[in-house]
């Protein structure tokens, strides 16, 4: 089996990177995204003990707690056994809905919390802007960023790198196109307000709802985020998939979408590989057949993503849960898995049941 690739088939350069501030881990369909994001976070924390890392899940169906075997909530908490890795589970859509409901019930922006609350303006503006593509994601994301900032203030320490275990919906980063959409919208707004002038304000109800001002503010905020997210030294996206047609097809679509957002994506983790050729002791016809199918797609991946770090991860005998198992498993992100010498590891996972 020829697994020779020109680019290193591991994430060593990412794990030891001192510049990356934002790492997104994404993929669809139960491919091992949470395991991969947890593994990346653990390896980074182990390799750079002087830095602080935050692993954050934005999936409404959280499973970071399940992955580590301990409970995490919307406040960042250090992982038991690690001094420099914290985890957090936040549902940005629910948080945003709560804020919106609060703003509607109070009839105005809730207090002076600035930013999103001002934008909501009693729910009216949310109705108006809700149809702009990407705006929900932008508001959700800014809620996340605000939360991180609050955590840093509360803990008294900043996080050097944040790893996002993104939701499978994939549109999380759609808001990166928002500045372009908002620019066009603001142009139109400018034309209308220029023609109608003060008459428009009299239709807008209580107070002065400066829509174009708020949208400009939102646009500026998103633009700032966008600048960071399109800097390949600061941000990267790691795609997780399995060696099957549908997963690869989804991965390809995800990569093309990320490229359209000018986002750096140069790593793919291929999970659940059988490596049946090297497993003489524990083998079966079914494994052989599935491995043959997986190899077929692996060769295709190699041809399609020549410039990518394609990391091949094995299918283990048990679930990878708990810090100990994750540490054992995550090693292979740093130094690629060699089925001939590392094969025993997949049977050495501790039973977390």
């Amino acid at each position, binding site marked *: 089996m020829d697994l020779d690739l020109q680019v290193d088939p591991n994430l060593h350069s990412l794990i030891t990177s001192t510049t990356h501030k934002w790492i997104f881990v994404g993929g669809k369909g139960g491919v091992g995204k949470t395991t991969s994001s947890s593994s990346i976070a653990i390896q980074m924390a182990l390799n750079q003990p002087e830095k602080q890392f935050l692993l954050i899940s934005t999936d409404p169906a959280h499973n970071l707690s399940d992955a580590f075997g301990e409970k995490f909530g919307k406040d960042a908490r250090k992982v038991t056994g690690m001094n420099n890795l914290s985890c957090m589970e936040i549902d940005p859509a629910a948080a945003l809905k709560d804020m919106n409901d609060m703003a509607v019930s109070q009839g105005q922006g809730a207090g002076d919390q600035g930013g999103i609350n001002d934008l909501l303006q009693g729910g009216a503006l949310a109705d108006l802007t809700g149809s702009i593509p990407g705006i929900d994601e932008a508001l959700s994301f800014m809620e996340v960023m605000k939360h991180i900032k609050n955590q840093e203030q509360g803990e008294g320490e900043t996080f050097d790198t944040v790893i996002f275990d993104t939701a499978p919906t994939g549109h999380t980063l759609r808001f990166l196109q928002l500045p372009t959409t908002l620019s066009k919208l603001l142009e139109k707004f400018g034309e209308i307000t220029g023609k109608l002038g003060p008459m428009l304000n009299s239709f807008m109800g209580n107070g002065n709802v400066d829509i174009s001002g708020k949208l400009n503010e939102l646009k500026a905020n998103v633009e700032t985020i966008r600048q960071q997210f399109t800097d390949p030294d600061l941000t990267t996206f790691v795609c997780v998939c399995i060696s099957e*047609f549908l997963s*690869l*097809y989804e991965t*390809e679509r995800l990569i*093309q979408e990320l490229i359209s957002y000018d986002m750096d994506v140069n790593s793919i983790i291929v999970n659940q590989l059988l490596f049946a050729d090297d497993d003489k002791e524990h083998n079966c016809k079914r494994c052989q057949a599935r491995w043959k199918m997986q190899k*077929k*797609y692996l*060769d*295709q*991946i190699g*041809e*399609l993503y020549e410039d990518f770090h394609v990391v091949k991860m094995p299918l283990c005998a048990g679930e990878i849960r708990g810090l100990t198992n994750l540490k054992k498993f995550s090693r292979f992100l740093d130094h690629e898995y060699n089925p001939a010498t590392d094969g025993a590891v997949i049977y050495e996972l501790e039973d977390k049941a």
Partner: protein
Amino acid sequence: MSDITMEKWVLGTTLMFIIITKFLQYTASYHESWISKFTLGSTTAYKDYMSKLHEQKLVQEENHSISAQDNYAKWTKNNRKLDKLAADIKQLKSQIHEQSAKSQQLLKTVKLIGLTLPFFALKMWKGKEIVYYLPTNKMFPHLFNGTWHQGWLFVAMYPLDFALSQINNLYDVSFIASKVPLYRGTAVGVSLGIWIWALTNVLGSIEFVINQLFLTPTVSEPVATEKKAN
């Protein structure tokens, strides 16, 4: 009918304008394709567009002929190519539409300057000149005689004409009549404006008859079907 009294060049020019207008009317559905052939056929955008469409078709056919699972890499590379071609084609299409819109606008301007305005100017300048005289002024009522002789404006002026003619029986209103273009002639002529109107209406009626008799598909008579008894 009397001989034609109008200058031949006026009549000839009028007929030419009418023929060109009718020609443009009958060939209206072909204008866009003519414009595209003459103006777009040689442009780079159009050539690129056609070649990319052809390439897109070939790549699509290739993708349909291979198995996505067995040739995933090739299939995906083809899909990437198709996405890029689709984006290029969309951009070229909008370029071509812009060019086509410009050409159509140019054609409209040429039509306006070369046909509509000159025809209008001719009607304004020579519209009241008589093409030919009717043999007698007793063929039509006075209103019609005035209209044929002086044009449609006579219809609007007719109430004044009628009032003045009644007043003239009692008082001399020739000084008013001299200022207002009222018809007082004994000979009835057909002015150019009216002649153009009549000609275009006759042509329109002939078009209608030909269209109805020969160009409209026949509608077959509906056949009543008997309901089956239950």
